[in-house]
């Protein structure tokens, strides 16, 4: 007889299968020990598909649903209990398969109660009556099952054999060994040591550890995480093991399993393993010590865990890295992937296994820190970083400070082991950063710092995909798209559609005290994204061709079709930056600058000719012809004076309209005649500069303009204290003057750039366009009172909301880029702006 079962321990990330005849008390037990949502029962599924939980004719559909629910829950890592009889192996197999698919542990609880107990329970049920012969058969099945459950790969099997056990047994949830989410560090994570004891001590010293202490410890309580592969190849394997074992024992370090420890463990256990890849060195050094050491090492390596999830789930360490779906999961597959990575048996020209580049696909929120594959230098790829910098091959030994994310490394003192594959390839070619279609297609919700969660609808994403993949600049460059800008509310003045009054009153209402009025240049929006040189471009943007920068339009297309034109324009901008010392003052080797490129005719020539000039030509031909015909009829005494007046009035409007668009056109020859009016420096290494006050931007830009006065065009500006009516009047006067002579108008922005109040993000700017300029937007004759009255009825709500959302997305994308998050994280924001732009909004606003 076995002892009475008093406790059932169940892994909290796992599947529990209840096995028992009808009436054996499974459902009652489940109700007592588990949350209702954790239990998926066959009766419940029968009811869901057929409205009747006793309907035996829908068994197939009910179980299909049950398996689907289990599948989804396990995918999400939810503790799941299956309440069905499960008395046949073929009933349990799909459940075990699901557990394996999702790499969770499966447990079974068998309810092996006496037959009469089941029958009695069953008979007492008011709503149902399972035939006696069925219960008998099930009861037999349970008996038989109990023997096979372990073979069926249930990792834990419990049998409840009596009513007493059923009543008294306790159920406990256990966390996985891998789950250290409650441990928040701080840590110093160290890559593959491979017996480089000297380098390890130097590195620990560098990291501030007291290496004389035993165990080695840090005065501020920091702890080391060894990423595995402590052993083999190097000269100091035993000493490294001394350090690691004592630190782990003294709780000043954690250590995970590397493939070399795994093999060593097998060798020490007396298994037949090939003594290659430096295992000989380990065995030799271990055997030079007393036998107790060998014992201790065997126990140590045998107890190592495949990976850890730490710091609230923000950090995952695994020797060879680990795709997100395996984090905090448990299976042979997880262990193997964590040790070796994803290999398919192929080998490269050096005979080394080809590994699937999982990091490129990685989209997880947890940072994954790993080693295993020697790289010339540690660098982040999609929120993952490899710290194996080949110390034993004469490279460096590297540590990552967490949560600081600082890298610390020391040079190896020797090449202890000849690398199989050259550590530094002649040309270090970074793989192209791949984006996945799931990063952008379908409905997306993007979390932004400035405007919270923003939804991008699936149809919009669909529309944006075509533009992005066919016409836009390479996403590696395209880390920003400018937001649209809302116009001021419609003016109440009789002769104006837009007037500064509304801009000032808007900002006054939001509680802002100072705004800046910036001249709005009439050209085409241009974003300059560029590095100091092509090496810097490659390092920061991952661009492999020679280009060192791009100029893009507001929809992300290359501004010029001619790449040499772009290159020489950027060269001139770079020269100004060199001369002004801005690379140094911002400690950066790349910049993103928001600007307007003039003349308008440089980019919009086709539009100008096909629409603007054409309309002017048509109107200025037809209206005089009409006036002439009218005059002739009037001369004959026909009463048409009022018609003629109107026609002549329209003619005058058309003349002014033609004057208006001509202001923004001049012929250019290659670069000659092109002007760039920068108004903001959006980002540089380490900082989203768009958050800085506008005065800062204008100062930096002025220093650039001084160095390239022919190319760069200043932006006239005026700071206005909103409490001072004189300043408002002066600014308004300034606007009137410059718009009367053809200026497009101005943009009014909070001086502090980004401002949020309790209603959320304050509009980062509103445009206030000039009276004459608006002829280009609203038509030559829009100022006719009858027309203007109707045009006042414009609804700005959608445009304003769009401006706010796009701005938040733009800043968010920059933030992610500057923080070196995944390319997809930035791309999703840029894509989002493009997707929002595909919303139908009156294009004239």
């Amino acid at each position, binding site marked *: 007889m076995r002892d009475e079962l008093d406790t059932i321990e169940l892994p909290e990330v796992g599947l529990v299968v209840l096995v028992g005849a009808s009436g054996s008390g499974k459902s009652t037990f489940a109700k007592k020990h588990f949350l209702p949502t954790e239990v998926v029962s066959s009766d419940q599924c029968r009811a869901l598909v057929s409205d009747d939980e006793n309907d035996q004719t829908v068994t197939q559909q009910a179980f299909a649903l049950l398996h689907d629910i289990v599948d989804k829950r396990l995918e999400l890592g939810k503790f799941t209990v299956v309440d069905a009889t499960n008395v046949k192996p073929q009933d349990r197999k799909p459940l075990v398969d699901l557990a394996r698919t999702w790499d969770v542990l499966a447990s079974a609880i068998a309810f092996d109660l006496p037959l009469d107990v089941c029958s009695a329970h069953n008979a007492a049920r008011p709503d149902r009556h399972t035939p006696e012969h069925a219960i008998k058969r099930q009861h037999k099945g349970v008996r038989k099952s109990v023997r096979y459950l372990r073979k069926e790969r249930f990792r834990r099997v419990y049998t409840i054999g009596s009513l007493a056990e059923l009543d008294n047994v306790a159920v406990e949830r256990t966390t996985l060994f891998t789950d250290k989410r409650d441990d928040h560090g701080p840590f110093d994570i160290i890559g593959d040591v491979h017996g480089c004891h000297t380098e390890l001590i130097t590195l620990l010293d560098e990291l501030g550890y007291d290496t004389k202490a035993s165990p080695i410890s840090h005065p501020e309580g920091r702890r080391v995480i060894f990423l595995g592969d402590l052993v083999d190849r190097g000269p100091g394997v035993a000493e490294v093991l001394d350090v690691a074992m004592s630190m782990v024992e003294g709780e000043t370090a954690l250590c995970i399993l590397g493939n070399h420890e795994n093999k060593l463990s097998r060798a020490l256990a007396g298994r037949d393993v090939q003594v290659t890849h430096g295992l000989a060195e380990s065995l030799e050094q271990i055997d030079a010590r007393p036998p107790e050491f060998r014992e201790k090492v065997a126990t140590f390596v045998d107890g190592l865990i495949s990976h850890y999830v730490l710091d609230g789930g923000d950090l995952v360490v695994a020797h060879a890295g680990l795709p997100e779906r395996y984090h905090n999961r448990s299976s042979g597959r997880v262990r193997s992937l964590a040790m070796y990575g994803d290999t398919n048996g192929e080998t490269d020209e050096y005979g080394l296994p080809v590994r699937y580049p999982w990091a490129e696909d990685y989209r997880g929120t947890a940072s994954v820190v790993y080693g295993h594959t020697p790289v010339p230098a540690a660098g982040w790829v999609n929120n993952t970083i490899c710290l194996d910098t080949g110390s034993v091959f004469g490279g460096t030994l590297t540590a990552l400070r967490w949560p600081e994310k600082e890298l610390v490394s020391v040079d190896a003192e020797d090449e202890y082991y000849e690398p199989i594959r050259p550590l530094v390839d002649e040309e270090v070619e970074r793989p192209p950063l791949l984006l996945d*279609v799931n990063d952008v297609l379908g409905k997306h919700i993007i979390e932004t710092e400035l405007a919270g969660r923003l939804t991008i609808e699936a149809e919009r994403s669909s529309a944006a995909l075509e533009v992005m993949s066919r016409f836009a600049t390479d996403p590696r460059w395209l880390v920003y798209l400018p937001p649209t800008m809302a116009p001021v509310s419609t003016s109440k003045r009789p002769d104006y559609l837009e007037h500064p009054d509304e801009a000032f009153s808007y900002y006054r209402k939001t509680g802002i005290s100072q705004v800046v009025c910036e001249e709005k240049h009439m050209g085409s929006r241009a974003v300059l994204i560029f590095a100091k040189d092509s090496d810097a471009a490659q390092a920061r943007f991952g661009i492999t061709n020679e280009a060192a920068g791009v100029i893009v339009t507001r929809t992300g297309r290359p501004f010029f079709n001619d790449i040499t034109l772009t290159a020489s324009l950027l060269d001139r901008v770079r020269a100004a930056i060199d001369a002004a010392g801005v690379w140094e003052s911002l400690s950066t080797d790349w910049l993103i600058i928001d600007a307007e490129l003039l003349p308008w005719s440089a980019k919009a020539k086709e539009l100008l000719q096909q629409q603007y000039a054409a309309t002017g*030509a048509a109107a200025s031909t037809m209206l005089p012809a009409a006036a002439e015909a009218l005059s002739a009829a009037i001369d004959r005494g026909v009463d048409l004076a009022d018609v003629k007046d109107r026609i002549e009035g329209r003619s005058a409007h058309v003349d002014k309209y033609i004057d208006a668009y001509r202001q923004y056109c001049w012929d250019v020859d290659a670069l000659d005649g092109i002007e760039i009016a920068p108004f903001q420096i959006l980002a540089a290494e380490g900082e989203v500069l768009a958050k800085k006050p506008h005065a800062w931007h204008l100062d930096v830009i002025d220093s650039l303009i001084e160095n390239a006065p022919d190319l760069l065009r200043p932006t006239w500006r005026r700071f206005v204290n909103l409490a001072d009516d004189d300043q408002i009047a002066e600014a308004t006067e300034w606007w009137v003057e410059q718009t009367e002579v053809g200026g497009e108008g101005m943009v009014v922005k909070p001086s502090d750039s980004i401002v949020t109040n309790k209603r959320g993000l304050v509009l980062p700017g509103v445009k206030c366009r000039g009276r004459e300029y608006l002829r*280009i937007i609203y038509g030559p004759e829009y100022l006719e009172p009858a027309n203007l009255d109707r045009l006042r009825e414009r609804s700005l709500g959608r445009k304003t909301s769009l401006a706010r959302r796009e701005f938040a997305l733009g800043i968010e994308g920059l933030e992610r880029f500057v923080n070196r998050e995944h390319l997809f994280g930035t791309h999703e924001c840029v894509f989002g702006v493009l997707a929002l732009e595909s919303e139908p909004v009156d294009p004239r606003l």
Partner: protein
Amino acid sequence: MLVSITAMATDTVPDATNLGYLLHKHPDRVRSVDVGFGRAHVFYPESSAEQCTATLLVEVDPISLSRTRTGSKGAQTLEPYVNDRPYVASSMLSVALGRLYGSALAGNCENRPELVDQPLDLEVSLPVVPVRGGEEVLRSLFEPLGYAVACDVVALDEEFPSWGDSPYLSVTLSSKQTLQRCLEHLYVLLPVMDDRKHYWIGEEEIEKLLRRGGEWLPEHPKADFITKRYLRFRSLTREALAQLADGLDDTDAADETNDASEQAIERPLSLNDERMHAVVGAVVAAGGGRVVDLGCGEGNLVRRLLAEGSVSEVLGVDVSIGALDKAEKRLHLDEMSERRREQVHLIQGALTYTDDRLRGFDVATVIEVIEHVDEERLDILSRVLFGDAAPGTVIVTTPNVEYNVHFPKLSVGTLRHRDHRFEWTRAEFTTWAEQVCSDYGYTVAFGPIGPDDAATGPPTQMAVFSKGTGGAG
């Protein structure tokens, strides 16, 4: 908009002011009517026995044009406020002609019925006519109808002579015609010259407009052209077209797309057919199975592949939702049996993104696609296609730029399509293909499509990549 019609005295109609009777408008008065998009006036700048001119002027309300949503899809068809429509002779002028000269168009003249069939010496003056195709089209439309045509091109902007000419002509048409016939000509041909969407006209009305040409249109040498231009903005079925104009060519009058223009350049060879034939052949030679057509467009190749017995499933992928919608219609997916339906799927995707839906196929076809991708993004495309989707066989076709010298319509140095980012020589294509093979473990064989000229090679080049070394390549 403005049109003036002048009648000159002739032997048979010695008094030009008879024009007033025919138009039902008294030469000394103004007739003003609201036509929905503005106010139309008819008046006479001159009226004498020798010469009489009736002018129709419409004061178009520019705001109403933009504020009214036109077209069936609504939202996106807001007209810009800056618009030539108020000033040019378009379908709107036809509408105004119908409203103000309706009786004359119908051939009614109560007071002088005998005038209706009298040819008059007429001169029509249209100061601004948008003519797609310019003077050549203008002449081809009116000269066969017996008009002497005079026209001047309107300059775009005299301050910017480099911008060239506007799309407008100032037109004078002179002919001896009955007024009814002359009005019919204008009525039908103004929208044809303009060749833009018909505003302010319902679909049924378009048919009515065309019927105004009933007596003379079938004999017009450009009847086909006129009908097609007339109807191309309608979503029409072949039947409706056949019903309307018996015997006219009933090919799809769909929008002229860029593809059509590329095909026009290549047409003498019917290269597209040869290409499809060669690609289907290569798919079959590779063993068929599950095929993904990347850049399937409107489904031309998908349809052909489905007809092959060895092809068990086709996934059509395109980046354009519009193209996929058309493909769905053209493949009649909604009418397929369930079994058949399971063999074909259409999805939106782009080769610049990895996509697990593209994995596990036996064959991928990438037909005339790579030249639409910026050359610097081809590394990503190769990686996605060969490295990630990794089908057993990949069939790629692309233009051979060396062959371009054989296309008479193509000027030197220009590519076959506005959207082509590059066109490769055979050597360039080979270099790219070999790099792909070495990067992703494929072997490649090349084949010509179209006449394989000794000096330049074929118009289209095809590469068939096979995964691994033991493949068919």
